[in-house]
């Protein structure tokens, strides 16, 4: 089991304590392509942050590949994120003053890989995603779809155990959204990558093989979606 969550709870203590995750139990196998779907306020972003070791939880157990993620120092958490998790964000989160290839190199920089080696690897990944010609361009010179593919290259470059995609198509038009989802699907099928997509769009969720519904901080229905026909847009694959 790659990801195991047992009775994970999280409360935000503000003026009004907010119990966001109320005992999450979830198992995800290596090589799965799943989506976590829920409306805003359902706790899906919090769950994603915990899965990505960006945030901690109050009680329960979270294991990645058997390793307990609990009470990590900032440095240890940074190391785990670097080695085990690749992030894809809705807003791409590329660094504006770095070129595409420099952005892709960044996770390797934090692994202490030599300049030459990481440049080579980054170029290789950009090539695979069809962005070789754009390597020297800055993010603001690229289209949304190109930016997201750069971000995907950056997520893939460390060969992480898990790819976490937070609304990966949220800022893209429907045509590009389809391309990005097809790309993720292909990566899952060809490279056996474990991909978790967090979304509120059923069309996006429909691309994944398993849809986990989250509502009011608890896991609801878990749909097997091998046939990609779980939602009404499923049949023709349209998004939005």
């Amino acid at each position, binding site marked *: 089991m790659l990801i195991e969550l047992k009775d994970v709870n999280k409360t935000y203590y503000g003026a009004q304590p907010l119990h966001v995750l109320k005992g999450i139990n979830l198992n995800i196998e290596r090589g799965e392509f799943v989506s976590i779907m829920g409306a805003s306020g359902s706790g899906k972003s919090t769950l994603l*942050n915990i899965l*990505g070791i*960006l*945030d901690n939880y109050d009680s329960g157990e979270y294991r990645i590949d058997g390793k307990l993620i609990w009470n990590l120092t*900032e*440095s240890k958490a*940074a*190391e785990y*994120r*670097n*080695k085990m998790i690749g*992030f894809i*964000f809705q807003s791409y*989160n*590329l*660094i*504006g*003053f*770095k070129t595409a290839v420099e952005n892709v190199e*960044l*996770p390797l*920089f*934090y*692994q202490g890989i030599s*300049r030459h080696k990481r440049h080579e690897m980054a170029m290789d990944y950009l090539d695979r995603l069809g962005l070789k010609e754009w390597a020297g361009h800055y993010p603001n010179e690229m289209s949304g779809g190109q930016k997201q593919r750069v971000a995907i290259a*950056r997520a893939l470059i*460390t060969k992480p155990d898990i790819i976490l995609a937070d609304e990966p198509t949220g800022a893209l038009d429907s045509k590009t959204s389809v391309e990005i989802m097809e790309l993720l699907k292909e990566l899952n099928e060809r490279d056996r990558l474990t991909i978790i997509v967090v979304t509120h769009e059923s069309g996006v969720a429909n691309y994944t093989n398993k849809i986990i519904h989250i509502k009011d901080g608890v896991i609801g229905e878990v749909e097997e979606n091998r046939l990609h026909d779980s939602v009404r847009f499923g049949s023709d694959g349209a998004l939005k």
Partner: protein
Amino acid sequence: MKDLFSEIWSTLRQNKLRTTLTGLAVSWGIIIIIVLIGTGNGLMNALLNNSSDSVQNLIAVFPGSTSKAYNGMNEGTPIRFDDRDITFSEQYSEKIDRAFGSLYFSDTLSLGWEALSSQMAGVDPKMKEIMWEKLVAGRFINKNDLKNKSKHIVIDEDAASQLLGDDKDYNKILGKHVNVGNIPFKVVGILEREDQSWGHTSYIPYSTARALRADGAWLSRITMEFHGLETKEANEAFEKGYKRAMSTFHGADPEDTRTTYLSNYYLNNQEMSKAIRIMRLALWILGFLTLLSGIVGVSNIMLITVKERIHEFGIRKALGATPWSILKLIVVESIVITAFFGYIGMVIGMVADIFLDKTLGSHPMDMGFMQMYIFKNIGVGFDVAVEATLLLIVAGTVAGIIPAWKGAKVRPIEALRADK
């Protein structure tokens, strides 16, 4: 390390105007420090040049005149020193190890057809240690000269040139005989001549001068070597007692303080080094305060930078940046800005020092009765340059540390949520 610098380079290039403005504050601070310390050094060099370098346990006594009538003696009667005063001084206290006189008179120096008038100073070898002028060739009057009443003379470099018929190579006069009046003296040493406005002074042994002026010339001064006067109070008490004794010895009112004038080399030197220490400290403090405003400027800008870059730090953290790596990035950036612009400031400051030295430092100030250097050798030494560099690195670190801490400790989710 190279990676770190290329990271920093790309962010600095992003914000050219901001980087430059910040840097200027630091440059300015360093320019002020270097110019302040440089001119301060110049001032101190000039001061030190007008006195001796080493601490001397010497008191010089100069004759004055009575300031009140006493016991049949009129007010304004000049006090005259002769050999009896030397003996009296030596016997005055067991703290006096030795006393010696200086005898001055004017005469003509000549060599062949060349002649010039000079003040002749019959001195003790000890005078060498308290003279302003430095020896440039040969030697000064020594103990043997004194014992043998040798006809040896030490003259200044200008006098030497003139006597040789304006020959710049004044060393040629060493060993030659020049006439004092009509008595030949062998030149044994040459002194530098710094101040053109004074007349020439030539030095001969005291004993020789005494013999030449057997008719009873008065002593211009008596110099006493003493021991065992450590504190200012002890020195002042001793001086007071001595003046009293001298007044009494000359038949003047014991309370008359104008019969003699004392100059205590030991105390003067102490006061001088104290003044110099205070001045140096004051200059450093002034300079540091100026630099401090630069540091605050850098720190302020770095804080804004960190705030603006919080989102970027969030991305970096999500990709595996440790807090330490973020801290390092910001602190090194701060050091780079401070060190680079500080260095520029240092170079400009040093150029300014050279300029000041060429203008202020090489022209004596005309005080009417004499010319005097207010500044001499304006500039900073290698030690100050090294200290300033270290100060810059420390300053850069200090300026960067608070912003860096803010950047390093922000949690990745908060950072990612922050506005771009």
